[in-house]
């Protein structure tokens, strides 16, 4: 006998957990798939945003108690037919099949990287990536770190690196103070967020936070030794061991695209109930537009309630959710990339690390009016193991090429996944027992 989940949720970050808690109130069968070993998503799993500790503990507790089943360590890779999705489980080496009635996609966001000369040198890392390494035991004590790029994540990462014993030399934010002021005003209106900002500020005492400043090159012999920075007028170098770099976040759209959800302005289009263009498929959190954890929690709750049929309950949250979205828009505008950071590459700068594609070869194609399909066909840019997850957003920023199509599997899987018959999770007695 095969069972259907009433509500199946992909992603156990703030949005997915809030959705699970809300949907479970309706005594439905709810499960949450996540490719990590534990719930929490990008911030809570990484131990970032600790200043929001009470909210985190509250949600983790509610999630644990709500009766929804957490199916961790499962990465959703394909959707062979409506109402069915398949996830790869690394631990058992099995492709599992899940049937659902309603689906909530809460797949979060990832960091955007922009290429510049030297960015592939050992020692240059993603800001969030370095943070995760440190959480995993990587020792930064006494290391000189420059944090550069754009977005609120830079401050959070710097604060944590400092806390863990790194010597944070500088935080370089490419956005100008003038651009960020309206956003700062928004922040001031939000008690929870202002608290977080103040706390971060306290942690960051003694670290220089430079706005209107960005990296132009990472320099070193076989590994990073200096970073060259500019404020648009002069250039200088900072000696450092690590450069933690990130240019804000981009939504994870692969799964929504796979399910055929309409995407507008680089985000999944949803109505006030978080319903996508596909019947029965909802989307919550960062894929609908980068707006932060408070927005993710609210959208998750709305999606969970709506998917459980409680539209009345969901409607009560819509006004607050709209306000959070406005906050997200202000943030996006504050951290918009300046033209200068899109002109950092020289011809030899690698853009696609998987396939070793240089800026020069892509620029030549762009100049001849080729599109992303031409570029992919001719250079294989974005066709390596990461399937354009890293270079896709960069290429879009640099050349305006959009990757609007995805193919299953949306993540690489062992060939074995295709050979063995997918296993229905209903054989998975454990999940059923957990439900009782």
């Amino acid at each position, binding site marked *: 006998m095969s069972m259907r989940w009433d509500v199946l949720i992909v992603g156990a970050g703030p949005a997915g957990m809030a959705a699970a808690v809300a949907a479970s109130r309706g005594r439905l069968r709810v499960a949450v798939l996540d490719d990590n070993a534990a719930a929490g998503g990008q911030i809570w799993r990484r131990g970032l945003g600790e200043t929001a500790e009470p909210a985190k503990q509250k949600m983790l507790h509610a999630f644990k108690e709500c009766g929804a089943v957490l199916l961790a360590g499962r990465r959703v890779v394909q959707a062979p037919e409506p109402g069915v999705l398949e996830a790869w489980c690394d631990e058992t080496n099995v492709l599992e099949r899940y049937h659902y009635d309603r689906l909530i996609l809460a797949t979060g966001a990832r960091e955007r990287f922009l290429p510049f000369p030297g960015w592939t040198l050992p020692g240059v890392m993603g800001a969030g990536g370095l943070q995760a390494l440190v959480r995993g035991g990587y020792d930064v004590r006494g290391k000189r770190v420059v944090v550069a790029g754009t977005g609120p994540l830079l401050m959070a990462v710097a604060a944590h690196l400092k806390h863990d014993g790194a010597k944070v030399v500088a935080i370089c934010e490419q956005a100008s103070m003038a651009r960020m002021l309206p956003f700062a005003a928004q922040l001031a209106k939000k008690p929870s967020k202002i608290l977080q900002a103040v706390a971060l500020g306290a942690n960051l005492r003694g670290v220089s936070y430079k706005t209107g400043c960005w990296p132009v090159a990472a320099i070193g012999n076989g590994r990073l030794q200096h970073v060259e920075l500019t404020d648009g007028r002069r250039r200088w170098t900072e000696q450092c061991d690590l450069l933690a770099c990130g240019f804000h976040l981009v939504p994870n759209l692969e799964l929504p695209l796979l399910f055929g959800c309409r995407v507008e302005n680089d985000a999944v289009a949803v109505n006030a109930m978080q319903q996508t263009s596909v019947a029965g498929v909802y989307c919550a959190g960062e894929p609908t537009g980068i707006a932060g954890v408070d927005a993710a929690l609210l959208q998750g709750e709305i999606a969970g309630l709506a998917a459980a049929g409680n539209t009345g309950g969901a409607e009560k949250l819509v006004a607050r959710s709209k306000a959070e979205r406005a906050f997200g828009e202000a943030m996006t505008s504050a951290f918009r990339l300046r033209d200068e950071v899109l002109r950092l590459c020289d011809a030899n700068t690698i853009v696609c690390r998987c396939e070793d594609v240089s800026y020069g070869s892509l620029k030549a194609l762009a100049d001849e009016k080729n599109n992303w399909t031409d570029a992919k066909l001719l250079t294989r840019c974005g066709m390596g193991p990461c399937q354009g997850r890293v270079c896709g957003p960069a290429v879009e920023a640099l050349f305006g090429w959009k990757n609007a199509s995805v193919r299953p599997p949306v993540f690489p899987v062992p*060939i074995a996944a295709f050979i063995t018959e997918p296993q229905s999770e209903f054989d998975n007695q454990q999940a059923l027992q957990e439900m009782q």
Partner: protein
Amino acid sequence: MQFDVLILGAGIVGSACALECARAGMKVGIVEPNVPANGASAAGMGHIVVMDDSPAQLALSRYGRELWQQMRQALPATVEYEQCGTLWVAADEEEMQEVHAKQRTYASVGVETEILDAQALEHAEPQLRKGLAGGLRVPGDGVIYPPAAARFFLDEAIRLGATLLRGVLPVAAAQGRVKLQDGSGLSAGAIVIATGVNTSLVPWITVQPRKGHLVITDRYPGFVRHQLVELGYLKSAHKLTADSVAFNVQPRQTGQLLIGSSRQYSDAVPDVDAAILRRMLDRASEYLPRISELSAIRVWTGFRAATPDKLPLIGPTPDRSVFLAMGFEGLGITNAPGAARLVGDYLLGREPAIDRTPFLPGRALKQAEAMRA
């Protein structure tokens, strides 16, 4: 605009024809509604292989391979030409008999081969399962990256003066005139239709889309060294009706493996068919047991343009201004340079290097008439 020749379709075949004509000093126009090399030429495997399924195919593919080898020095690095050779794998003694027969066929047209016994096979390809009978190595065969090759032909043609008309869709071609979707027209002394699996300009011919699945892995340099094909491949490729799979694995210059092959007559829906994909990969793992551990990074499908007699349509049609170069099934990459030569021979009145009569489009007309009668 007036052209000597208009080539419709900028896949590898149309692009090779454009280069051939531009080299001969003709004023060439190439019309491509989409991205050049977006069709089968983007989806295919790029195995440059001599095939012995019929004497005509053997002659054309041997010719094609020879032309590829001749231009090797001129090909840019992006084409990734690698003369890795083909290894036809024989599972048992019966297939070993076929190995001997195949060697004789190849020898008759001067294609070098080498018979491997079980031990030599194991030595040549240690990842193959133990207990196979042997194989036939064809050292002159190779592998390329087809979209880059197609684009190289096109760029060379443009450098020699050809004009690419991109993003415009021809809807009719007759009597030296090509009508475009926007109502405008182009004219030329000759028109070459190289639209692959698309027969909208020549509805009287039968070309069926024959779907194939491919899987590309992450990089595992040295996992296999030759393009490995099971000897039963021809049997499978020749089945006219049923869906079939065969073991066919290609080492890419990048260290990646490209895994084929499946054949399905189907509607032209590009979706992955999980059942046949499973059969195909099952087959691959019977020969290469450890392949199941490798990471697959992408799965896709493509359509071969299959004619009823498995031979391409190359040459003139009853409308003396219209020539065809299409219907290459699973060999259009190998055969593109040879087909382009034959087209050039027709247009320039040159003596062809091989017998071109088996490829005459007239046979398709006869088949169509026979069917109507």
